[in-house]
């Protein structure tokens, strides 16, 4: 029996058994080895899922290594979910705990929802990476360490009194001691590279080794390396050589006795690619521009974790996309709003601190009633907070963070791939109702990735800008605030349209004419009308997932907690528990049936990566006793943790009944 199988059982005790194909199946079944088959001289074991974590120094290229392994895994056809985790410093001091960067990947032969709670395999490039990640590892997990980095000095730097590789403290794990640096240098001694440059390819050696262990296709990585280093062929070939040497090392060395196979997942039919949240969001914006016929204009200021969207959109100027890197957050949204006045699909991208600066302009957009997308990739706060870590604590900021009564619709995607649909949905609302719209993603969705079924372009919803083309009064006048009776949207008359010249501004306007008005009754009417417009936005009803119809506890979430909540729900059901689930995509306005749904359960649990912001809104609006479960650790929930919370809620209810 191999350690890997033991470990799968051990992991199943602590991790969500989310993926097992149906809720009726037992949750504690092991990841069954099928075989052993043999490849060459070594046995192959079959697993249904694996969680790997690559960890090293910030400069060790762990994100790249993880990305490549993810690409290989996606093209192989596994379902997958990823969690990059890195420090805010570009190069934190080498060899220290704060400098550790990691990339976790969960892949399986079935539908999975999270990057996994606990890794089966940890690749630790130095003592800091080992020390920082060991607490997350279940007993029996496999650890691959780069022994070359376990020097006295490096050990002392992170507070190891004795060498953990030698003192027996890792006996509960399956330890592979590999001199990755030495082996890489050996493999590259003919490469003509200086030692320092050659050494940098050790991440590719590690990737090669892992690719061998898990039967990943290698062609993609080799061509990726040749393209990435096209201008430095020496470096390109060295990386390819290191990658191959790592593979061959696995094949020949005795310390790796077994390799593992995770067969492709059975996803719904279609053409797939792997996609991260920020990439999906960028594509969603381009698609929204295409489907509306509006030119896309992004006004933005770089901020983690939103900058990738600015980078991505900047690459697609042949789609007519204009990207403007402004002098500050305020100018970013100002330019987007100016472009929107001119008839563009105006977008600004940022994170919480940027939203704070943009608040006044968002209020102006509410008053001008122009379409505008405000994309907030949330991160830990307050203030600068945790720039590279995730949180969902900007909900109330998006909802209320402006002076006066300034309602703004909010859309929140639940998964990385769903960021695409959410961008289209936000654009639909903005354009149809002439309003700024918040798109609330977060750092976990932004950087995490999953397979995405590529939609056909003509399946995508069309968005109708319906520009004003002529006067809207019988006397031939044009009133910029004469509303559509259905949507309460005002006409969008863009400069260049003759006869519709008009002036608008942030001062209160008279209903209809749009002239400045300080009339008390008019102001009361306008405030209520702007609110009614947002309240009246058509959003889909929530769909309740309650297979038995017997559940008395409802778990309700929003945003990126979807993965861990759903995994926890599957666990509870697999163990015979009854639990209903709802996940909100529209947070303002709430779906029309939400109140009824909430009231039809005895207990409502709301897990959030904040201190209860959605729960506060639900309690205020629906007078239901929604109970919060909160965590603000900069990391997503774990499925096991949430399953315990759900079981406790079910159990408490039973106790109350028996009282």
């Amino acid at each position, binding site marked *: 029996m191999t350690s890997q199988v033991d470990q799968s059982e051990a992991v199943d005790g602590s991790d969500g058994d989310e993926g097992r194909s149906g809720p009726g199946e037992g949750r504690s079944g092991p990841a069954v080895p099928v075989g052993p088959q043999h490849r060459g001289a070594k046995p192959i074991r079959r697993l249904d899922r694996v969680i790997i974590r690559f960890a090293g120094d910030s400069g060790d290229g762990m994100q790249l290594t993880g990305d490549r392994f993810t690409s290989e895994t996606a093209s192989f056809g596994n379902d997958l979910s990823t969690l990059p985790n890195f420090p805010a410093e570009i190069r934190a001091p080498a060899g220290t705990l704060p400098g550790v960067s990691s990339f976790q990947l969960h892949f399986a032969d079935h539908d999975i929802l999270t990057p996994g709670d606990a890794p089966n395999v940890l690749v630790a490039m130095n003592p800091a990476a080992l020390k920082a990640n060991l607490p997350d590892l279940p007993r029996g997990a496999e650890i691959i360490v780069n022994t070359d980095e376990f020097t006295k000095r490096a050990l002392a730097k992170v507070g190891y009194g004795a060498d953990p590789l030698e003192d027996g403290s890792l006996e509960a794990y399956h330890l592979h001691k590999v001199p990755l640096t030495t082996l890489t240098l050996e493999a590259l001694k003919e490469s003509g590279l200086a030692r320092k440059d050659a050494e940098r390819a050790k991440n590719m050696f590690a990737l090669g080794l892992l690719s061998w262990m898990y039967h990943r296709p290698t062609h993609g990585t080799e061509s990726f390396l040749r393209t990435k280093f096209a201008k430095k062929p020496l470096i390109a070939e060295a990386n390819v050589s290191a990658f191959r040497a790592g593979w061959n090392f696995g094949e020949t060395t005795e310390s790796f006795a077994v390799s593992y196979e995770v067969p492709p997942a059975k996803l719904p039919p279609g053409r*797939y690619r792997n996609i991260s949240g920020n990439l999906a969001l960028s594509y969603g914006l381009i698609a929204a521009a295409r489907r509306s016929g509006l030119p896309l204009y992004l*006004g933005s200021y770089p901020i983690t974790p939103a900058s990738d969207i600015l980078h991505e959109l900047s690459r697609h100027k042949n789609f007519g996309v*204009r990207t403007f890197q402004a002098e500050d957050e305020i100018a970013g949204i100002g330019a987007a709003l100016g472009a929107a*006045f001119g008839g563009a699909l105006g977008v600004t991208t940022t994170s919480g601190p940027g939203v704070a600066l943009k608040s006044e302009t968002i209020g102006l957009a509410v008053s001008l009633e122009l379409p505008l997308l405000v994309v907030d990739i949330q991160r830990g706060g307050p203030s600068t907070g945790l720039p590279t870590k995730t949180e969902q604590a900007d909900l109330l900021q998006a909802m209320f963070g402006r002076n006066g009564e300034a309602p703004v619709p909010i859309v929140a995607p639940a998964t990385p791939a769903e960021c695409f649909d959410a961008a289209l949905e936000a654009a639909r609302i903005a354009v149809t109702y002439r309003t700024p719209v918040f798109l609330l993603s977060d750092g976990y969705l932004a950087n995490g990735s999953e397979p995405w079924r590529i939609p056909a372009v003509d399946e995508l919803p069309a968005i109708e800008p319906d520009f004003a083309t002529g006067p809207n009064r019988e006397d031939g006048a044009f009133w910029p605030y004469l509303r559509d009776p259905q949507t309460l949207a005002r006409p969008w008359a863009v400069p260049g349209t003759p006869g519709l010249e008009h002036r608008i501004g942030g001062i209160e306007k008279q209903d209809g004419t749009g002239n400045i008005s300080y009339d008390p009754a008019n102001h009361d009417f306008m405030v209520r009308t702007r609110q009614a417009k947002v309240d009246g936005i058509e959003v889909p009803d929530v769909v309740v997932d309650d297979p038995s119809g017997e559940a008395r506890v409802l778990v309700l979430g929003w945003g990126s907690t979807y993965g861990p909540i759903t995994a926890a729900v599957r666990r509870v059901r697999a163990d015979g528990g009854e639990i209903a689930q709802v996940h909100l995509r529209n947070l303002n306005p709430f779906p029309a049936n939400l109140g009824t749904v909430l009231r039809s359960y005895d207990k409502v649990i709301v897990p959030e990566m904040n201190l209860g912001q959605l729960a506060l809104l639900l309690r205020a609006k629906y007078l239901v006793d929604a109970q919060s479960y909160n965590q603000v650790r900069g990391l997503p929930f774990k499925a096991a943790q949430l399953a315990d919370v759900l079981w406790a809620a079910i159990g408490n209810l039973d106790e109350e009944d028996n009282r």
Partner: protein
Amino acid sequence: MSEKFPSLKLVPKVEAPQSAKDFKTDQEVRWCPGCGDYAILAAVQAFMPELGIRRENTVFVSGIGCSSRFPYYMNTYGVHSIHGRAPAIATGLASARRDLSVWVVTGDGDALSIGGNHLIHALRRNVNLKILLFNNRIYGLTKGQYSPTSEVGKITKSTPMGSLDAPFNPLSLAIGAEATFVARTIDSDRQHLQSVLRAAAEHEGTALVEIYQNCNIFNDGAFEVLKEPGTRDEALIRLEHGQPIRFGADRARGVFRGADGELTVGAVTAENESAVLVHDAHAAGPATAFALSRIADADTLHHTPIGVLREVRRPVYDELMAEQLDTATAERGPGDLATLLAGADTWTVD
């Protein structure tokens, strides 16, 4: 036909001539009686027909302050935005829509205090914007606090013992911010004001026009020395490109470059007449324009230059932006959404 206003080359033209009346709105003008803004409004309304462009392709964008009410009174498209942000909003509009003539109206508080950052970045980018900065050296709308152009020691409601901060010189600031067009004029001199507007409208890129504007309520007479028949000839230096910089009664005084390179003002004599500095608004380097912007006495306003201090050619931001789109399209073809979404690395599930 060559373009009279190259910066408006993409803006649709009118068939029939317009008049000042065409640019007036039905809104009641709500500045204080006697405010310098009235004169500027009338001068701009009378000037606009000269551009020969369609009203619907003209947009006035403003921030907050007395001057920022301006768009309501122009029968064009207009946005009265928020404090200090007009250059940012106008940048988005102008860079998205090159077929528009975009004007920013702002004041000394709006442009130089709360909006200082946007102003300097608009100038360095050289977006096709015409920025009219009404400088009255006081806060009017908030009722009389000192502004970033108020003289040191200004007694106001917020500075009963006198203001402490040194003022900005808007033109020095603009030149330092890489502005390609920098000019100054005065509310009461319609002819000069319109000549500067004309030059600004001709300029391709961002034009900054500082307009000395009298606030008769909170800072009355701030520029009187430049307007009074008895003092103005000695106080004002009217700049004209290619002409020796002379001023005063009988043009008896002139600007000279001293041995140390600094500019000085002195009497023109038969001996030194040929040494009078000839104004070169198109000089590649900004040093002389900068020196001219600082030649006025900060306390008395004597030797205040008006006219175009600097006008140089530099690539225009919105033009470059559009060119990048064209280049990308020429090199890669118009974007195909289906290809983009599919990417390079896909697999099929049956």
